[in-house]
Every structure is written in C-alpha cells, then in structure tokens.
C-alpha cells in the first residue's frame, strides 16, 4: 500500500518536473537578480554582434573615405608623438625606431581610451532601448568595447605595415600578444563598466571621463618608455593598470633587450582582474534601476 502511494507520488513528481522543464518559470521579485542571467546573456549573444555592427556601420555612413578614418587617428598621434617626444625631447628609445616604440604603446592605449569613452556613454546614448525593451544590459557597454577592439585590429594591421617599412623583424615574444590583448580587453571592460553604470545616475562622469583619458595619456608610458621612470616611483607608477599592459605590449612587439618590470606587471594583472570583477558586480547591482533612472 505504502509502496504504491510512494510510486504514484514519484510518478506525479516526475511528470510535474517534466512539464516544468518544458515551460520554465521566471520569477520577478524585488531584489532578486535573474537566476538565469548568464544563460540569458548566451541567448542574446547575437545582440552583442548586432550592436557593435550597428555602431561601426553608422560611423561611416555618408562619409567619403569611410573606414580609413579609423586609421587616421593612430597615424597622426604617432607622427606627433615621434616629433615631440622623439625629436624635440630626445627621449631614449633603446635603438628601436621611435615610431614603432610609440605605435606599440599607442595600440593598447587607444583601445583603452576609445573603449572607455564609448562605453561610458553607451548606456545613456541607448536610453531609449533601455527603457523600452528587455535584454541583458551588459550587451551595450560590451559592444562599445568590441567596436574599439575592431579599431584595435585595424591599427595592429597598420603596425605590421610599419614594421615592414622599417624592416623591423619581431621576435617570438609576439606570441604573447593574444594574452596581452585579453588583458587590455579586461582593463577596458572593467573601467568601461564602472563608468557606464556611474554615468547613468551621475551625468558628471560624462565630463570626468574625457579628463581621465587626457590625463591618462601622460601618466602611461605612451609617449615615453617606462625605463625613464625613477626606481623609487616605479611601484606607485605601476598602480596605473595600463602601465603593465602597455609595457607588456612593448616588450612583446619590440623584443630585443626590453625588460619587463615584473612586480609592476603583476600588480597590473591583479588590478585589471579586480577592476573587471568589481565592474561587473557594480553593473549588475545597478542594472535593475537603469530603466528608472536613465
């Protein structure tokens, strides 16, 4: 008797769990972040692509030279930096052609700076979508970073051409580039997420971010090499996460006897991981209020 009852209950339980499987229940409650957020993100993965594609397509509509514009900025900056820091200030370059030294650092810096500017404004710029459609909001700042990444790839192609011009042969260290790119991506995403969420509530950050970018280019080893930083300031200087990233890029691209300051690099990796994790945490925390505040 008991066994039959048990068996029946088991069968019922299986049946109801099966129907639940088919039509999964979503519970919307205050304070409950969506349990399936990461699965949602996967379901909406094509949105990342579409948003990035939209931003890129729109950028060059009705322009004459189109995509070529994304190369103009790194080239011009490189020329200016070479003239100012290389020829006028005569900062040392350890025997490497100065343009390549600058370009190798320009690559990650431009990526970071563009990603930061674009993603911090991305949420506010898409306010309409955020208040009218549901999709994982993470897609927006991420696609802004992806757009900057596309520019990064184009600049990288430019760098290869530049290397060919100077007949500069890169070493095996270039293989570390993908990892370093991931690091740069992480730094851009982390900072981008922070500023994106903050800008939604406090529009002041729209003015703070360009300042950070402008200031950042002077405290990061873009126009100069880290070797000139005196030893006693090295550790403090390394608190800028981009220092490690840019140094890493230089080390990988230029090769030769460029040294990588390992303690600084380790700090940078740690900071990037911290920035990314905290950025995601803060974004998820404030995401629920975006539609109300934006």
């Amino acid at each position, binding site marked *: 008797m008991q066994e039959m009852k048990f068996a029946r209950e088991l069968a019922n339980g299986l049946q109801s769990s099966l129907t639940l499987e088919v039509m999964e229940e979503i*519970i919307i*409650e205050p304070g409950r972040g969506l349990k399936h957020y990461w699965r949602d993100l996967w379901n909406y993965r094509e949105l990342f692509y579409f948003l990035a594609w939209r931003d890129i397509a729109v950028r060059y509509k009705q322009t004459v030279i189109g995509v070529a514009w994304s190369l103009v900025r790194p080239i011009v900056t490189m020329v200016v930096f070479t003239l100012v820091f290389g020829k006028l200030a005569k900062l040392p370059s350890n025997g490497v052609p100065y343009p390549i030294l600058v370009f190798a650092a320009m690559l990650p810096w431009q990526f970071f700076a563009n990603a930061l500017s674009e993603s911090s404004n991305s949420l506010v710029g898409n306010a309409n979508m955020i208040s009218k459609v549901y999709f994982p909001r993470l897609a927006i700042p991420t696609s802004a970073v992806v757009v900057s990444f596309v520019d990064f790839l184009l600049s990288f192609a430019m760098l290869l051409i530049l290397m060919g011009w100077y007949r500069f042969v890169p070493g095996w260290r270039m293989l570390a580039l993908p990892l370093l790119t991931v690091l740069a991506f992480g730094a851009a995403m982390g900072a981008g997420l922070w500023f994106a969420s903050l800008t939604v509530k406090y*529009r002041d950050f729209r003015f703070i971010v360009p300042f950070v970018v402008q200031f950042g280019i002077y405290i990061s080893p873009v126009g100069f090499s880290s070797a000139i930083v005196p030893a006693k300031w090295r550790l403090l200087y390394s608190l800028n996460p981009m220092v490690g990233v840019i140094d890493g890029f230089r080390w990988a691209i230029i090769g030769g006897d460029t040294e990588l300051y390992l303690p600084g690099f380790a700090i940078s990796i740690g900071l990037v991981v911290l920035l990314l994790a905290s950025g995601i945490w803060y974004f998820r925390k404030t995401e629920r209020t975006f539609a109300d505040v934006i």
Partner: protein
Amino acid sequence: MSDTVIRVESLGKRYIIGHQRNGSDGLRHVLQDKLTAPLRWARSKAQSAKSKAQGAKSEEQSASDASPLALSSLPFAPRVEEFWALKDVSFSVARGEVVGIIGRNGAGKSTLLKILSRITEPTTGRVRIRGRVASLLEVGTGFHPELTGRENVFLNGAILGMTREEIKRKFDEIVAFAEVEKFLDTPVKRYSSGMYVRLAFAVAAHLEPEILIVDEVLAVGDAQFQKKCLGKMGQVSKEGRTILFVSHNMTAVKSLCGSALWLDAGSIVASGEAEQVVSDYLQNGAASLHEQEWTDAASAPGNDKVRIRSARVFASIANPRGEFTVETPLQMEFEFWNNIPDAVLNLTLHLFTIEGTYVFAVASSASPRRQGLVSEVVRIPAHLLNDGIYTVTIQVVQDSSTTVYIHPEILVFDVRDSDRAGNWFGKWPGVVRPKLEWLSDDDTVIRNSN
C-alpha cells in the same frame, strides 16, 4: 497544474521623487547631502533627546524615527518623497487569454507592462511568468535612422530577441507585411512616418513568443495600419498565444479581448469580461451633460461670428423614470447668437457613440437669419438609437457649405435598455435599433401587390 502563464501577486512599484531644488541630481549635491547628513541626524537626535528630557510626546517621535518609512531621519539618506505607481496589484492570466488593460493616463498600465517585461523591478510583490515574453512597448525601438530598412529589420529583430537565422527566415514575410519592398535599401530616415511605423510593427509582429505584451501601439498610424495590426494580433491569439493589450481604443479592446483589467491610480478597480469592464470604465468616465447654458455672450463658446447660448437634451414626452431608454423620444434644443448680418445659416447635429463611432449627422434647413438669438429644435424618435452613451457635436454652417463654428461634445447622454420580455438579456448589437416590421406569410395583401 493549472494553465496559468502569468501570476501577479501583490505587485507594487514605488518611485522616489527627489526634490529638485537646484538641479540636485548632480554629484555635488549627492556628496553634499551625504556629508551633511550626519550633522542633520545628530541634530534631530539632539532635538529628540531634548524633547524626551522635557517628557513631551517623546514616544511618538521615537516611534516615527524607528519606522522604516521615516527615511529622512536615517543617517546618510537624501531628502525624498515616495510615489506608488502600482499598489497591491494581483491577477492571473491563463494560457491563450487575450487580456485588455484599460485605464486613464497615469493609472500605472505602462508601469505594469514594464515590470512584466523585466525592464524595471517591482518594489513589492512578485510575478511568476511561464513562457517566452516579447513586448512591444514602443514601435521602432532601436531603429537607427542612418541604417537602411533591411539593416534595421535585422537590428530590431535582434533587439527584440530573435536570432539571425529566425530573422533571415522571416525576412520576406516581414517585408511583405510592411509593404516597403521598394525602399528596403534606403536609410530609414527617408521613410515616411507611415512606412516607418509599418516596418517597425512588422518586425515585432513576427516574433513568436508565448506571451505578447502590447502597449498602445495602435495610437500611431492610420486606419489601415490599425486594421492590419488588429488583424495580426487576432491571428496571433488564434494560434493560442497569450496577449496583454493596453489601449485607449475601447472598440479594439472589446473586439480583441476576452477579459479586461481596469487600472486606476495604481490599483485594479475592476476585472472580468471585457465588455462589462469597458462599459463600467466608460460609464465612469463620461459625465452626463444634458444641459449647458452660457448667459454671457462675451464668454460663451464660439467666435466673432456666432456664439452658442445653450444646448439641451430632454425627453419630449414626460418621463417618470427620468432616464432615457431606447423607447424615449428625445428632443434637443440649441440656441446661438448670430453676429453675421444677412447670413444663410443652418445647424448640423453630429451624433457619436462614446467609443467614437459616428451614428449620423442631420442638418436643419438653411435659411436667412437675422442678427441676434437663433434657436433650433430637433427630435430623435424613440426606437432609433441603441442603448449606450452618446455625445453630440453641433456645427453652425453658412451657405450650406462653410463651417462657421463647431463645438464638439456639447452634450453627453446615456440611453438605457428597456425592460425586455423574453429570455435573452445580452447586449443588443448594432448602433441603431429601429423597430421595423416583419411581415408574416399570412399577409397576402402585401405579397400580391406588385
């Protein structure tokens, strides 16, 4: 397990209205507030300590300080005011139901939809949803004016949750529905507003969600577009999908929805069968206006040519019940001041149902009028109008062609159903309800006359 796809339990949504003194949204004010908050808190504690020492009403004060609603007494809290857009809303929707959500502007309908669409979070309560939800809260969300129609279809589809494969598969259908084949490759900023709205709706209409949430999208677009939208939504509901539909168009709600919810000031006032809820809502909204009079010519409605003095509707036969039924003959009287010398004027009466359906227009005969007060009377016989609420628009016409002045909704009245013999007590259909004669077979006199 019941087939409930949406279950809403005690849902509430609170918005905090900050007091925008000098643009207090900025970082500076938040920091300022936060820095001075401990001072304010200390001050209020000192005050309460003082009053406690004095022994006067200290219980109340400390009680209010302890209550969670006394936000401003907590340290580090900004100065705020609360606004509850939704209060304790509970209802459930079964699979395949088409539910209309009606109510005045500001009742909380859009907020409810936003919560169901997961765009914003509720403050209290919870919602259980089973099935994929697609919401159409605005037509053309995510459309970028610089991109072409084709590109926007893909973009919009992706934003609404379709995969690229899905969009490609349905692309031709979407374009055919929108009727913009020729203009697919021009940037959307060059589209007319009609094309824009058609394309936007076409994309959304081809989503295949289990639950579709639509918010007043019919407010945009011409009559043909609205017909198409309603047709598509009807088709979707026949496929067994659940639809939640917010609209101000009562005819649409009545024709599409089986049940309806009436929201007012954040709470549900009525729910149940669509016809009944809609009629309750309309009855509540329409104040009846049987008589209006303006004794002062300077402030009476009109222009420098004519001014309306009065409008009245009443039963032309003394009516003991005091209300109009389908059996009551009605009389309407209008008076107006004519300032045009030697004008050939007539009045035209336009009758509408409260839902906006045009019933008829009837014009008085045009004749030359003297300057001064003109009065006209029109009679509506019994057994013409069906039961319902009607509005009257009066129009003054010159030379049978030019409109001198129109006054919309000058009168509003309600015609009730009469007591019926027989067994059927549903709502009699039709705009008019004339009592016409059926001739039976026995009436050979009529049949034989050619």
